């Protein structure tokens, strides 16, 4: 399509009839009305360089604040001289996932399983220490690091558990079906915020003093269970969309239950439920902000905490705009990635 015809197509769409023309004009005015002051605040009138609040010009955004606090937004209160460990963990995860994506088709599954076994313990070791590294308590973790940590490790619990319970719900054994239904319905019925409260406040009161499960671990497990229930329902959608004939054919070929499930049913079902599972994962990333109620300083928590510094008091807009932008970037990137995955698989 050449340039002029695309232009005329747009003109056709936006101003085809007097009514659509009117609606377009109203919308343009509305967008300009919102966008112009926003851009003025965030870019034109903003202060980018400096070191203190005094350097900032009133009326515009004070990005100096974000610069001064950038380390905390990324790493929380993690000891400054140990932050390289977080960097290495991040690089390891990116490289690990990239290698699986880029690997030739026949190696993908094997490499994926290897990464699944290596990466999560490696990440925990790098972040928390031990075996030669200085021990860093989870209370010192924070910022974007913690948001990603909670999201990734909760989903490591949620995805396998979700698949298992989705299969369990379809099982022919009544007791397994019952257990699965109870698990799913219980965790789906409880608000996430209540789960986090229970995990963080009630468990330590019930458990005897000596048994101290880490506060962050409790939140991650709690979140993992809730998301597992949602994942299970997403996967069930995929399982139900699959024609019965697929499993019957697999059984007819002589495959047992696990082989038929692993080789025939699940690969197809997961492909179908990928969009729904991505939805759950994006929801999970946004739900991690709820850990703020138990004072775990994730990205939003650290943004809020940094507002209490008398040197930077009143930087609410900057703190929320910046952390909001990061959340949006992550969620948007994820949704694009899942779109491209769907396209490649020709769904």
């Amino acid at each position, binding site marked *: 399509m050449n340039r002029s015809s695309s232009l005329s197509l747009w003109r056709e769409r936006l101003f085809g009839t007097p009514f659509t023309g009117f609606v377009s004009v109203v919308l343009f005015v509305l967008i300009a009305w919102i966008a112009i002051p926003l851009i003025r605040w965030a870019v034109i009138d903003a202060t980018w360089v400096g070191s203190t609040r005094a350097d900032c010009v009133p009326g515009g955004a004070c990005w100096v604040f974000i610069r001064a606090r950038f380390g905390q937004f990324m790493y929380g*209160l993690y000891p*400054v001289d140990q932050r390289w460990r977080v960097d290495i963990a991040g690089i390891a995860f990116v490289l690990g996932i990239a290698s699986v994506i880029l690997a030739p088709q026949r190696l993908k599954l094997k490499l994926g399983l290897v990464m699944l076994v290596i990466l999560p313990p490696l990440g925990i070791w790098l972040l928390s220490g031990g075996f030669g590294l200085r021990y860093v308590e989870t209370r010192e973790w924070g910022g974007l690091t913690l948001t990603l940590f909670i999201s990734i490790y909760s989903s490591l619990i949620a995805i396998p558990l979700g698949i298992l319970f989705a299969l369990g719900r379809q099982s022919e054994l009544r007791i397994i079906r019952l257990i699965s239904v109870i698990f799913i319905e219980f965790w789906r019925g409880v608000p996430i915020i209540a789960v986090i*409260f229970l995990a963080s406040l009630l468990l*330590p*009161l019930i458990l005897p003093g000596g048994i101290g499960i880490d506060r962050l671990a409790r939140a991650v497990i709690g979140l993992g269970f809730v998301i597992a229930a949602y994942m299970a329902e997403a996967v069930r959608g995929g399982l139900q969309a699959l024609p019965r004939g697929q499993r019957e054919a697999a059984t007819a070929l002589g495959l047992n239950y696990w082989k038929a499930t692993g080789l025939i049913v699940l690969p197809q079902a997961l492909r179908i439920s990928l969009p729904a599972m991505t939805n759950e994962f994006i929801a999970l990333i946004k739900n991690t902000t709820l850990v703020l109620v138990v004072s775990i*300083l994730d990205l939003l928590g650290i943004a809020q*905490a940094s507002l209490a510094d*008398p040197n930077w008091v009143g930087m609410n807009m900057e703190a929320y705009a910046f952390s909001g932008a990061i959340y949006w970037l992550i969620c948007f990137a994820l949704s694009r990635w899942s779109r491209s995955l769907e396209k490649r698989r020709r769904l």
Partner: protein
Amino acid sequence: MTFRILGAVVLLAAGASVAQAQQLAPSPTLDAVKARGNLECGVHLGLPGFSFANDKGEWSGLDVDYCKALAAAVLGDANKVKYTPTSVQQRWPILQSGQVDVLSRNSTITFSRNATLGLNFQGINFYEGQTFIVRKSAGVKDAAGLDGASVCVAAGSTEEKNAADWFRERNLKVTITNFQKNDDAIAAYDAGRCDAYTAGVGALAGQRAKLKNPDDHVILTQPISNDPQGPVTRWGDERWQLIVRWVLNGTIAAEMLGVTSKNVDEMKANSKNTEVRRLLGAEGGFGAMMGLSNDWMYNAIKQVGNYGESYERNVGMGSSLKLERGQNQLWTKGGLLFTPPFQ
């Protein structure tokens, strides 16, 4: 004769029980703190001047300073504190379940909390109370001076009710202008739509820093409500409660007696005042009575400073909040701050 024997027996028994009291009561919390090598302190997630992490990630503030003083007194090092930031909802459970040794988190002392939550409040390190912020140019000295003025408040807030009641009781004609949110109310005040805005002293200090010209505004020091705040402990472990209480008292006594982080060495060596000498461990063995070293308060004052120093540094004139002492001044200087004697 029999009476004399009886009297001797009673005296003996009394002596024995005194001797028993001289022995230290067990303190599992203190033992745990010493074994751990650090103090677990519950603090606010972020409250300007009271508790916050600075650009370098170090905790500071008036409430945080108390944790440091306690760590210095118990462990000899003000840096041996681990902070647990707590939200409003989790502050009591986190203390009750033993995840922290003490809570120093601007929590108001009330009867029902003390009676029903299994918690004890160990003194007051900040007299919080609802007050007003006004323009300097208005020349208002106290809340009664607001007669004929207008006050911006968030509709339905406790502050609105308190202020309305207070003015009504005193037959003062004050117009209360309602806004949907606190932020709207303070913005309206900043824009000049009202003569005053109302909130707690500590909150107002933080709010003032957000105004266009903070120096043009003054916070009235005489509050219209009473919300004293201080460190909190669990029920049980009397000796730990004793330590928590007297470290706070010690920082106030130090200001009273003129002991500061700068002159503490000189005071310990040369002071003739027996109370100073007892406080700093030069005589009396007061620390040992609680199972601490005798230089417990010496360490706290040396490393953290007395109450006044801490106040000025965190919320007072040495900070960006520039809050006057007001009720948080010593009782001898017109405030409410008070400590029983070190005798």
